[in-house]
Structures are given as structure tokens and as C-alpha cells.
């Protein structure tokens, strides 16, 4: 291992680490400069003007507006430049790069469960290939945890009832600490593990060994049947619910219910069907209604564990990769004409024409069926950007 350039700070093993250390070093220098400066001034004055010392004490200034302004403005400029630098870096930290490899993380007292899409799952250990951006989608089964890898200089709280994301690009092979940083109960300090950064070939080999009888999508597919999702949502089952093939990462028409207003009168709008949208649709199906459908789906809040939810989401995503819908099929809601809506549910949402009429979106969609993870994750990541989907009253 090459010598560490910051002996006090530990290894830098992610693309963010160097930059964070740099700004931290700068702030540390500012700290040292001012605290040493103040200390020297205090000691110097205390010695020079000690009681009984024969020095000139006449005309001691009692106030000076220029001086006050100077020592207000100069620190302010320094402070704001630190703010700007650190904020820029933080902004980068929140932008998940398209094409990141996605890993699902569930925290529970007092362990981490990490799930690779290829099917391999790990407890308290994470294996990732070097040089490839990885995004962790995380949630908690119980209390708040925090996923912390000091060598990456990154942490993110893991909160029950919410998704949080953390991305990083490992830059140096090795094994690093994984800590839970938010106090989570009796054995908080044993909720630790390791992150192993491997060469890509090694990683590929590693993925195929161990517990990989089923891919994560297969686990999801099982749940999809077990919990009766397929009863309504499978391609040929029923017209009661929107089919889910191919929706992941696409814009889908939805209606935002307004209390007391019949669905017919609510204009449809589009959101990107990303991880968050699908998670919400399972635990809070009443929040956004797929345009053209009744709100009849029961909530699965508290009926599915977070791991199971991840598996379902991943399965829906898998369907998008594997089974691109044919234009005009049930799976492709954008292909529906207002007449189709009428025939199916008896009414046409107010502006559905506007949304489905423009065929650019649907054209682009059917034109290039996405293949491989890269494309769809990109969609998912940008989905996080566009699909804030907050109900507006």
C-alpha cells in the first residue's frame, strides 16, 4: 500500500475523500492561524503589560470602528469562501452520477444487510469494484442508523420510513471500516463491518460465488406472486390495475388525488417511475394514482419488510429491462387513447389527451428498448431529480 499522504486522517479511498480532506485542511489551517494568533497576542500582552511592568500605557484606545469593521469583514470573507467551497463539494455529493451501480441497504438493530442486484447478499460486509460509481439506496427497519465509511469520508443517515441515498466511487482497493454512526441502541458499537474494494475482475468473480441461487429480481418475482400483486398487475390479469412491465424509469401519467374532488375532475400529470415512486405506490398507494385507474390498491405499509420492498422494486425494474412493452399494449399506458380509457374505466381524466397525445415520449420509448443496467439506472437516478412528485394542493 502506498504511503498515506495524510497520516492523521487515514486512507483516502473514494473520489470524494481527497477533496474533502483538502477543504478540511484549509479550515484546519484557518483554525490554527487564528487560534495561534490569538494565543500569541494574549500571551504577549499578558507578559508585556503585566502589572508593574514599566511600559507605556498612555492613550489606550477604547474603541475603533475601522478596526471593528476590519475584524468583522475579514473573517466574514474567509468564512464565506469556506462555505462556497464546501457547499460546492456537498452539491456534488448529492448528485448521483448516471450509470451508478445500485446496491440496496437495510439497517436494523444491529446489523447491515446489503443486497447486490445480481442476487448476492451480505451481512455487515460490502464488496464493490474499484473505479465504478456505486449508489446505495438505504432504509431502516427500526431506528435511525447511519452508514459511515471513514476511508470514503462519507456518511448518510438511514431513516425508517424514508429512503436515503449515498453514492461514492471507490478509488483504492483494500478493506475499510464500515460503521453505524448514529446511536441506535444497546449494541450500536457492534453494528460495524467492512467495505472491501476489489479489482473489477475479482468483483465479477466474487459475485458468482456464494449464495447466488436466485437473483434479487427472482426474489422479487416470488414476492410479486406471494403477495398477490400479480393478481392485478400482471400483464394479462386484469384491467383493474396498471401493468408494470416497462414502466421503470419512464414518465408515467398519474393523478394526484385531491380530497373531495372526484378523480374525473383531476388533471393528470406525469412523474418518473423511479425507486421512490414505486416504493410510495406500494406503501402509500393513495398518494399518486396511475391515471386512468381507480384507487383500490390496499397499502402494504407495515406488511412488507423493507428488504421485501426493495426486492419488489428491483423486480419491477428488472421487468423494465427484460420485457419492454410493445406499443399500444396494456403495459404501455401512453399508447392508450381517450377511448381506451373510456372503455376501460368509464371516464377520461381531464387532460389525459394532452399527455398521451404527444407521441414523442412514447416514440422514444419504444424505439430503443433499454438493455443492461446502465441505461435504466441512469433513468432511475435522473428520476430522483425530476420526480419529486410532491402533492400540491
Amino acid at each position, binding site marked *: 500500500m502506498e504511503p498515506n499522504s495524510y497520516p492523521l486522517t487515514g486512507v483516502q479511498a473514494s473520489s470524494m475523500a481527497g477533496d474533502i480532506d483538502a477543504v478540511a485542511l484549509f479550515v484546519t489551517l484557518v483554525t490554527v492561524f487564528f487560534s495561534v494568533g490569538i494565543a500569541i497576542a494574549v500571551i504577549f500582552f499578558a507578559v508585556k503589560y503585566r502589572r508593574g511592568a514599566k511600559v507605556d500605557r498612555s492613550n489606550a484606545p477604547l474603541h475603533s470602528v475601522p478596526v471593528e469593521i476590519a475584524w468583522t469583514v475579514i473573517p466574514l470573507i474567509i468564512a464565506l469562501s469556506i462555505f462556497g467551497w464546501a457547499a460546492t463539494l456537498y*452539491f456534488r455529493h*448529492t*448528485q448521483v452520477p448516471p450509470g451508478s451501480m445500485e446496491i440496496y441497504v437495510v439497517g436494523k438493530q444491529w446489523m447491515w444487510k446489503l443486497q447486490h442486484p445480481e442476487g448476492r447478499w451480505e451481512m455487515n460486509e460490502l464488496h464493490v469494484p474499484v473505479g465504478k460509481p456505486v449508489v446505495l439506496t438505504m432504509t431502516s427497519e427500526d431506528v435511525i442508523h447511519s452508514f459511515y465509511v471513514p476511508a470514503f469520508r462519507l456518511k448518510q443517515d438511514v*431513516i425508517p420510513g*424514508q*429512503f*436515503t*441515498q449515498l453514492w461514492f466511487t471507490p478509488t483504492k482497493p483494500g478493506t475499510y471500516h464500515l460503521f453505524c454512526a448514529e446511536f441506535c441502541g444497546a449494541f450500536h458499537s457492534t453494528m460495524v463491518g467492512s467495505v472491501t474494494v476489489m479489482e473489477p475482475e475479482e468483483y465479477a468473480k466474487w459475485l458468482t460465488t456464494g449464495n447466488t441461487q436466485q437473483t434479487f429480481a427472482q426474489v422479487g418475482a416470488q414476492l410479486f406472486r406471494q403477495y398477490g400483486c400479480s393478481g392485478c398487475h400482471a400483464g394479462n390479469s386484469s384491467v383493474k390495475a396498471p401493468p408494470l412491465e416497462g414502466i421503470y424509469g419512464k414518465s408515467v401519467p398519474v393523478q394526484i388525488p*385531491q380530497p*373531495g*374532488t372526484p378523480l374525473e375532475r383531476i388533471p393528470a400529470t406525469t412523474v418518473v417511475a423511479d425507486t*421512490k415512486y414505486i*416504493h*410510495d405506490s406500494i406503501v402509500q398507494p393513495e*398518494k399518486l394514482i396511475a391515471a386512468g385507474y381507480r384507487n383500490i390498491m390496499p397499502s402494504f405499509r407495515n406488511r412488507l419488510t423493507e428488504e421485501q420492498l426493495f426486492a419488489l422494486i428491483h423486480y419491477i425494474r428488472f421487468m423494465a429491462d427484460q420485457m419492454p412493452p410493445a406499443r399500444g399494449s396494456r403495459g404501455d399506458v401512453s399508447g392508450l387513447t381517450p377511448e381506451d380509457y373510456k372503455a376501460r374505466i368509464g371516464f377520461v381524466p381531464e387532460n389525459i389527451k394532452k399527455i398521451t397525445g404527444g407521441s414523442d415520449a412514447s416514440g422514444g420509448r419504444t424505439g430503443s428498448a433499454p438493455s443492461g443496467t446502465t441505461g435504466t439506472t441512469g433513468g432511475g437516478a435522473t428520476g*430522483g*431529480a425530476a*420526480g*419529486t*412528485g*410532491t402533492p400540491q*394542493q
Partner: protein
Amino acid sequence: MAKHATTHSHQASGGHGHHEGHGHGHDAHAGEHHIVPVSTYLAVISFLMVLLILTLVAAAFDLGALNLPIAMVIAVAKAAAVMYFFMHLKWSSKLVRLFATIAFAFLAILFVFSLNDYIGRGWVGMPTPWK
């Protein structure tokens, strides 16, 4: 003893005078309490009742997103009338009015800075990118 006296006078000249006196640090005038005519109270309670009816009337119409702001505006008007007349803010010292305002200002801080977060993120909690 002489030394003590000297020290003391040093303090007196250097610090604060120590004399007989009965001025006050406060504004004596503001302490008088104003007798408000009963007619004012009658007018205010009538106003409040009218606003109560108005609240109900406004709630009877489906104004969509407007219902809540209208209800709140009426409630603020009611609260203002109670504070201004029943609670004598109209006749109170500037200081009391200042603190009545400060309370609402800090309440506003609590609201604005918390809602800032919620409005700025998707509910499920992914960090929402800058727009």
C-alpha cells in the same frame, strides 16, 4: 480607615454614583392603565361574531386551495382584534408590543426554516437536487 474611605471614593468616581434619588429606569407614563369604554368591547365582540359567521360561510364553499388561506386570514383578524383590544395592546407600552411581535417572529422562524426542509425534499426523503 482613611485608606478605606479613599478606596471607596475611588470607586464612586470610577463606578457609579451613590446618591439619594428617586428617578426610575422605566417610563412612568406607560404604567397608567387605560380605562377602555364598554362600547369598544361591544364593538369588538360583535366584530368577532361576524368573523365567526364569515368563517363558517367561507367553509361552505368549495374554493379548492383557497379555503385554507381564507380561513387563516379570518383567524388572524380575530386574533388581532382580541390582542389589540381585549388584551390592551392598543394602549400598551412599546416594549409590550415589541415582545408580542417577537413571539410571532420567532414562531415564523420555526415554521419557515422547518418547512423549508419539507418543501425542499420529496417525501420519501432522497436528497432533492438543486433546481
